[in-house]
Structures are given as C-alpha cells and as structure tokens.
C-alpha cells in the first residue's frame, strides 16, 4: 500500500506512454496520408499543457479557477503583439506571455485568494471576463474578430512554419511542463500546497501561512498556461478574444474532470480525450456538444475520478499524487 513507489510511479509510466504515443502521430499521419490528424493531435498537446497548468491550482491547490483561459489569451496575444513589435522568437514570446500572465495572476490572485469556494470561482471568472472584454475593446488588435498572424514564430532561428516542426516543439514543451510540474508537486512547495488543500487550519497550526504558497502556485499556473496560448496562436495562426472566453475556462475544467484531478497524468489524458471527442462528435453532428455533455455526465456518474480512477480500478496505475 506504500505510496512511495519502488521505481517509477505508475502515473509517470502512463504519462511517458502517452508522450511516446503522441510522438508517433505525425509518422502515422504521414503513413495514412492524413495531415489533418497531426493538426488535431497538436491541438490536443496544446490543451494538455493548459490542463496541466490548471491541475496545479485546481487539483493540488483546491483553487477552482473558472478564469484560467485568460492566460491562454495572454499567451496568444503575446504572439500577436510580439510580432507587431518585431519579436518573433518563440522563447521571447513565451517570456512576454509569462510577464503578462504573472502580472495579471499576481494582482487578481491576491484579491481572489481572499475568498473561498463558490466566491473564488466567481471572482476568477469575473477577472477573466474583464481581460476578455479588454481585448474585445482593442480595435488595433481586431477587437471581437481577432487578428490573423503574418506567420508563425521562429525558435532560435528555426522556422515553425512546418506543421511537423511545430508539432514536435509543442510535444517538447508539454514534456517539459509535465516534468516540471511532476517535480514541483513532489517538492516541499508541492507538499505545502497539498496540505493546504487537505486542511488549511491544520497547516496553520503547524506554523504555515497558506496565502503566499497559494499565490505563487496561482502565478506559476498562469505562466505555464500562457505557454499553451503562445503555441495555440502559432497552431491556428490566429489570435482572438474567444481563446479566453469563459467557455474555454469551462472546457479546461471539463478536461480535468475527464482525466481525473490532482494527478497531472489525468489532466494530460483528459485534454487528449476531450479534444479528440470534440473532433469525432463534431464530424457527426453540429450538435456535438450534446454528445460531449452526455460523455461528461457518464464520467461524473460512473468514474468520478475520471480516467485516472478508471485506470486505478483496472489496476493499471495512475495513483493520486
């Protein structure tokens, strides 16, 4: 029953398996002559990064943010603004997106964390909607319609125009984000975050003040999500306020529910499944959201811990971290 796995934790194995499988997608897409498959898979990877970042605060910190898509938007607009200012390097744009995100998360997080439960959900939603309407009002950035990019970013001189190149860059980013969060959630900081999720009063009685830890986690999550935004803008070559609307925030929570919260691997798997399901269902009907909703109801009713819980029951790992 020990939670200290002897060698590699099952959930880590599952994550590695997912990454390896995803690495094979462009090869398979090439073999069957369907390049669109890679584009869908790339979308999955982007949202896996976003879902991972949300899992840090929602799953490990019990901070249910309903405004996480705002950071997706900051990342995307960092690409649009960066390109306008002559900054086309991906890393520089990621840095820019992180600066926007950190500033926004620091201020709104400090205020939001004064509230709990449903009030926290509502206040994060409100702040994200403020960011949304800010970009809607920016005529020079296309306002409501958004703005098409002149082209994709470059990475240290390497052009990301090729879909396969962008795909593997995204996969690399996902692997890095996963590895970073895996370490972070197992670190001292991660323990304090988890402890606060379990019982804040107990943590205070041990001598902790939870607020700074929660705020730092909130900022880290925002910064990591903006990386997904930078990559999403490159994938679609388009930036619009729709990326940061509340629907999108809701979808990210749904991804976590699909995969199972607080395991990282579940977030990744959930994003893959949710994006895949959306594509499959949308091919059948324009009312695909109906089927999506049904799937969500089934998961919540029959496997409240999502895919992770299902995997655990089938005895193939994915323990709660």
């Amino acid at each position, binding site marked *: *029953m*020990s*939670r*200290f796995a002897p060698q590699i934790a099952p959930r880590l194995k599952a994550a590695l398996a997912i990454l390896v499988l995803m690495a094979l997608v462009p090869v398979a897409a090439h073999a069957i002559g369907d390049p669109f498959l890679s584009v869908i898979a790339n979308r999955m990877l982007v949202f896996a990064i976003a879902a991972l970042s949300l899992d840090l605060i929602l799953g490990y910190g019990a901070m249910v943010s309903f405004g996480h898509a705002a950071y997706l938007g900051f990342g995307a607009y960092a690409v649009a603004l960066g390109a306008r200012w002559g900054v086309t390097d991906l890393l520089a744009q990621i840095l820019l997106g992180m600066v926007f995100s950190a500033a926004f998360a620091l201020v709104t997080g400090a205020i939001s964390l004064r509230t709990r439960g449903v009030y926290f959900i509502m206040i994060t939603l409100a702040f994200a909607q403020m960011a949304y309407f800010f970009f809607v009002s920016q005529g020079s950035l296309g306002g409501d319609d958004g703005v098409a990019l002149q082209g994709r970013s470059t990475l240290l001189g390497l052009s990301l125009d090729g879909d396969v190149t962008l795909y593997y860059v995204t996969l690399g980013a996902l692997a890095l984000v996963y590895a970073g969060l895996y*370490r*972070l959630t*197992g*670190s*001292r*900081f*991660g*323990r*304090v975050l*988890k*402890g606060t*999720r*379990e*019982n804040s*009063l*107990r*943590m*205070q*009685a*041990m*001598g*902790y*003040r939870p607020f700074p*830890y929660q705020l*730092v986690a909130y900022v880290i999550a925002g910064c990591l999500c903006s990386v997904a935004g930078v990559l999403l803008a490159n994938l679609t070559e388009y930036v619009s306020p729709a990326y940061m609307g509340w629907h999108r925030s809701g979808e990210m929570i749904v991804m976590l529910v699909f995969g199972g919260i607080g395991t990282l691997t579940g977030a990744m798997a959930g994003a893959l499944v949710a994006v895949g399901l959306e594509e499959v269902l949308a091919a059948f009907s324009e009312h695909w959201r109906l089927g999506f909703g049904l799937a969500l109801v089934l998961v919540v009713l029959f496997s409240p811990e999502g895919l992770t819980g299902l995997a655990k029951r089938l005895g193939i790992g994915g323990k*709660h971290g």
Partner: protein
Amino acid sequence: MAELLEIRDLRKNFGALAVTDGVSLSVGEGELHAIIGPNGAGKTTLIAQLSGQLAPDGGQVLYGGEDITHLDMAARVRRGLARSFQITALLPGMTVLENVALAVQARSGSSFRFWRDAGGEEITNAQARAALEEVGLADRAAVLASALSHGEQRQLELAVALATKPRLLLLDEPLAGTGGQEAERLIALMQRLKSRLTIVLIEHDMDAVFQLADRISVLVYGAIAATGTPEAVRADPAVRAAYLGEDA
C-alpha cells in the same frame, strides 16, 4: 516556577454571550495545567484564543513575557506554542509520515523549494519518524491518515504537535473518543511529555486529569471558579457544587 504563559483578563463574546468572561491564569514552565469544566464552559474557545485561531475581544496573552495577543497562529507555532484539536484535524489524503514531516518542514528551512523531492529528505523524515516513535505510531508511517482508527488519529494529532518542537503544548481533549488501552497509552505518553514540556490540558476524563495535573483550573460559564492543586480543587466546595456533582 517562572511563568511561561500568563493570561490577563481575557474576554470573548459571541453576541450577548460571554464565552470567555475575564479569565486570568498563569502556567509555570514545566507545569501541566488542566482546565476542566462542564460542557459549554468555554474551554475550547479559550484554547482557540491561546493558539491564535480566535482573536479575543479584550485582555492579554503573555508567552515567555512577550505579548502574543495579536500574533497569528503561524507566528505562535514558531515561538513554540503548539496545539492539538478536539475534533481531529489531520491531512486525510496524505500518509501518516507526510502529516508529521510537514510539521517538521515548517520549522526547518524554506518551503519555497520547488524541485527536490520532499519525500526523499532524510533528515526531515528521521525527525518525523522520531515523533511517530514517541506516540507509538511508527509502524503506521506509510498508511494514509484517513485509514487510521480513531485512537490512532488521536496519536497522530499528538505526533504532529510534537513535531513542531513545542515549548508549550495546548491539548484539547486528547482522550476524546478513545478507550481502554488507547487511553492508557496516551496518558502514559502525556506523563512522559510532562517532564520536558509545559502543557495546558483540557480533558473530560477526571481520572486522567487528577493523575496528570500539577494544577487544575475549573472553568464555569467562561470564568475561572477555582484554581489549585488537584487536592485543593477536589476539596473546594464551590467546585463540587458547580461541576463535580453530589457524588464527587
């Protein structure tokens, strides 16, 4: 005996009800001071004010000569003032060892460390194991706290409090809900702790209280009705009338 804890005219009202009604009390270094009283006398509210969970409406709390009335819980814990909870308050989804290791971590180095595996910190784990050893829970270290029996959870409460390396321990009904052997083991533990720590003990088990306490204060309707040695309190006619009942 030098005074470690001094409470001066402490007051707390919930609406019109004076839950703590001018309590003054001093606890000497090394003393085990029990606070007894009927249900609703305000014992837990008093502990909550001593630990910093609740802010008093009036009065002062001095600890080692320092006025700590307005310090928060974390600041008091760092000064060596730890508490256990009447209603078990643990981290249910974490292992027994992790529960205690977090208490060790709180007083040893920064917790803004983001990379190194906390579970692999040998020094932290060793100290956590020592605290578990002390309360007799060492063999349950790898179990989730939620999987412990009620009595074991009471033991873990104590281990967590001890792991903060306290100078003053506030114990809120550590024996609540335990029986027989479990209670005996906890009483024996408190007997051992008594020699190296100052303890304020709230407890309903009168046998345990009279066995352990150096001094006893009786709290009735938020005020101290009597303070003294166990013998003096037992003989006090006011206490017998107010609390111990006819047959005591």
